């Protein structure tokens, strides 16, 4: 079936060429980083994780969000989601690929990455994260491909694939829970040391992931002839609205505890994010933008008339997606390092090399996604 990804129109080839060019630039930038070390990024001994790990964290959420289509379809027999289930699984596949690449480009000694397997360390959350992510990738590629093959042959998928689909649901929850535990179990990093972290991660994931999925589906419906009912779109938009409301609520819980208790360790990271500390405020514009987008997006998605309007809905979804990205893909990881163990404030800003590598990784994800979606659409056009 994969050969179908090689045939397309002019726009398709142009898109592929663009992605390949961005990937090439990213690979060159990564080779430069490999040679000169992570000193070519904006990371320091004080802010020792930057945009790479932040993107990893955010994309684990996008990967986990495939369940928001699977749960209504498998558990509530929500038939209208049928054409979206495979798309959700393939989005998860490319998101996990992106996650793994972000971990890889963040390593100081990438050639030693297999030490994680050679010296398995169950006391390290990173070890478990690797296990659940690898398992999730395998699950989704197997389920997605099997279901698509069945669709191509016009038969119903084998029973074991159904079993795997059910297994993938708690598995998806596990990948984001374990990713939250990377942060929530560290003493001395008070912005992360919070029991609500995993719940917050899941809520923002279930908002941002399906929002992205709907946006891609709408684009494919218009440009590539993807068959999809409006009902599927508005019903998934409801999921986004609920999840985003929960996400904002969880965040406000953190704000309450920090501000009402007045305990400096709890409040400092949040003050840094929204107002800056000691004259440093690299992240404040991003966080205020996130706050504005979150409320604008929620307003658009909660109001039934606006949610059902196919002209307004994409704006609401884009606003929610961007808000989640700014909160988790920028603010959360960086602010965890402020203040430093010595109570100092350090801003971080990525370098050009870092941005090129970041774009290259996302382009690889987009290439995987494009190829998989192309196959899905080609198979469906063929059978019709």
């Amino acid at each position: 079936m994969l050969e179908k990804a090689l045939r397309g129109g002019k726009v398709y080839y142009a898109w592929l060429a663009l992605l390949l060019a961005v990937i090439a630039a990213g690979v060159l930038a990564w080779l430069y980083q490999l040679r000169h070390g992570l000193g070519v990024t904006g990371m320091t001994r004080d802010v020792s994780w930057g945009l790479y790990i932040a993107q990893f964290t955010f994309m684990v959420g996008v990967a986990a969000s495939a369940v928001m289509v699977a749960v209504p379809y498998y558990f509530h027999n929500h038939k209208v989601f049928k054409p979206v289930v495979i798309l959700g699984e393939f989005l998860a596949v490319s998101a996990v690929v992106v996650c793994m690449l972000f971990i890889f480009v963040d390593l100081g000694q990438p050639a030693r990455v297999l030490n994680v397997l050679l010296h398995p360390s169950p006391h390290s959350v990173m070890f478990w994260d690797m296990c659940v992510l690898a398992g999730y990738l395998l699950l989704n590629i197997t389920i997605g491909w099997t279901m698509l093959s069945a669709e191509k042959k016009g038969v119903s998928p084998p029973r074991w694939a159904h079993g795997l689909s059910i297994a993938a649901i708690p598995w998806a929850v596990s990948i984001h829970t374990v990713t939250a535990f990377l942060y929530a179990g560290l003493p001395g990093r008070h912005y992360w040391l919070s029991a609500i972290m995993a719940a917050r991660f899941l809520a923002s994931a279930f908002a941002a992931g399906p929002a992205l999925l709907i946006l891609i589906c709408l684009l494919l419906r218009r440009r590539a002839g993807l068959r999809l009912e409006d009902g599927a779109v508005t019903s998934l938009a409801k999921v986004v609205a609920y999840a985003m409301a929960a996400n904002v609520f969880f965040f406000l819980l953190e704000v309450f505890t920090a501000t009402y208790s007045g305990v400096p360790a709890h409040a400092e990271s949040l003050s840094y994010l929204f107002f800056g500390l000691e004259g440093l405020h690299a992240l404040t514009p991003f966080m205020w933008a996130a706050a504005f987008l979150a409320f604008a997006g929620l307003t658009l998605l909660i109001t039934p008339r606006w949610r059902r309007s196919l002209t307004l809905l994409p704006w609401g979804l884009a606003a929610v997606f961007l808000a989640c990205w700014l909160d988790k893909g920028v603010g959360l990881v960086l602010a965890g390092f402020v203040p430093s163990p010595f109570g100092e404030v350090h801003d971080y800003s990525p370098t050009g090399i870092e941005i090129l590598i970041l774009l290259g990784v996302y382009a690889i994800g987009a290439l995987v996604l494009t190829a998989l979606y192309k196959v899905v659409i080609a198979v469906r056009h063929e059978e019709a």
Partner: protein
Amino acid sequence: MSGKKISRRRFLGLGGAILAGTALLPAFGAALLPPGGGGQSVRYGMVVDWRRLTAEDIARMSRACHEGHNVPAVTEPGHEVKWLWGESFDRVFPEWEAPYAEDPRALSLPVLCNHCESPPCCRVCPTEATFKRADGVVMMDYHRCIGCRFCMAACPYGARSFNFTDPRRYLDEIRGDYPTRALGVVEKCDFCEERLRLGLEPLCAEASGGAVVFGDLADPDSAPRRLLAANFSLRRKAELGTGPNVHYLWRGVEADA
């Protein structure tokens, strides 16, 4: 012999399961053992009588440590590699606010790895590249470290440094009796384990003029334990439960009052 014959499929299945089990055993076996192994006879630790140390004393200790361990003198801001260095009191003990003290910034203390009882860095390391020895020393295996910097996020003391640049470029003179590090690995103080093996005290203690007392904290008669028994002392961020083995003596404060 009622034919309980094992089919080839079942044989292969069982064989595979046993093979997988043996592969996973070392991973989970390690988790069941107490960290650092059993039978603790020695627990190395340090007492810092910091009121006796001037900024120059600390600079001398830092130099001795860094020269002795080929620690590169990286100058680029944010990329410095440090094993032992001086910090002002308000940074070392941010929770001990002293707003009306004359100038808490003027007081300087040496800081280094605390060789914690329950080290978060070892807990989070995905490759056992950093681990705690039975004698309490928290070690680094520079050949195993993948440079993920999870330990740096986990350390509440900022005691770990990452080689953002090639460290060998910053070494004027390379000491042959201690290894240099490669680009992209984390490093930190190792309590001079190469000297402990020879029965010598750490370089910083030697250079401190007696203000830093090193020894076995498990032995009630050791020099550091006697100091701790007779004086009030502080440990950095003890509320986090990491159990630092570097103690800061609070001697002579009454005399100043």
